[in-house]
């Protein structure tokens, strides 16, 4: 099944932010003299989980909207939200507990997509695009 262009666009945007902020985090670990291989592995694992979680979220939302039935869409999104959270928790616990990656380097990248989304209106304005959600009032009418 072909991916919705919105899914590709949004996931790409988030992936760029996760990569940029991961580089920044590695630099901070280097500066404070705490860098080692476990930090790098934790960062790679955490970043992959963060982007993967966002991609799965985008695919779920896109497919639920394609179905067009409100009740079924709500149930589908509710079920997969819990599953995704359990999956993210299990992978992070596996990385930290079994592969002994740095806890902070593994967990901090999970918050990078949120930081990217916080800057989204600013990036859209710079590109000359109307920020997402600004046309919401038209939808209500």
């Amino acid at each position, binding site marked *: 099944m072909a991916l*919705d*262009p*919105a*899914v590709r*666009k*949004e996931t790409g945007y*988030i992936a760029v932010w996760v990569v940029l902020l991961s580089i920044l985090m590695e630099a901070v670990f280097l500066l404070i003299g705490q860098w080692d291989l476990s930090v790098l592995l934790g960062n790679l694992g955490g970043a992959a989980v963060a982007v993967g*979680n*966002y991609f799965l*979220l*985008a695919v779920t*939302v*896109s497919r*639920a*909207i394609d*179905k*067009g*039935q*409100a*009740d079924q*869409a*709500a*149930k589908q*999104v*509710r*079920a997969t*939200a*819990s599953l*995704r*959270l359990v999956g*993210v*928790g299990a992978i*992070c*616990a596996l990385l*930290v*507990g079994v592969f002994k990656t740095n*806890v902070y380097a593994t*967990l901090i990248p*999970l*918050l990078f*997509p*949120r930081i990217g*989304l916080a800057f*989204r209106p600013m990036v859209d304005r710079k590109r000359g695009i109307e920020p*997402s*959600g600004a*046309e*919401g009032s*038209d*939808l209500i009418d």
Partner: protein
Amino acid sequence: MLELAMGIMLGLLGLGAGCAMIAGIGPGIGEGNAVAKACEAIGRQPECKSDVTSTMIMGCAIAETTGLYGLIVAILLIFVAPGSFTGILKEAIK
């Protein structure tokens, strides 16, 4: 005595981690409601589908973050806190 104190402390840390995961329930419910309303909006105005989908994905990601905060707290309570609390307890008893 030290063993008992550590047992109680580790049990409470596990309980705290479990309580932190309650935060994971809310985002799912909220996302579900938001997507249901988005479906209704697209049903009324099908030409807005791409805009609604983009906005929905962003909104759901923001809602999802609250669940991730709980998850991070739970993982820290399980993997980081026992070591540091055990050290504090040993120091206090010495």
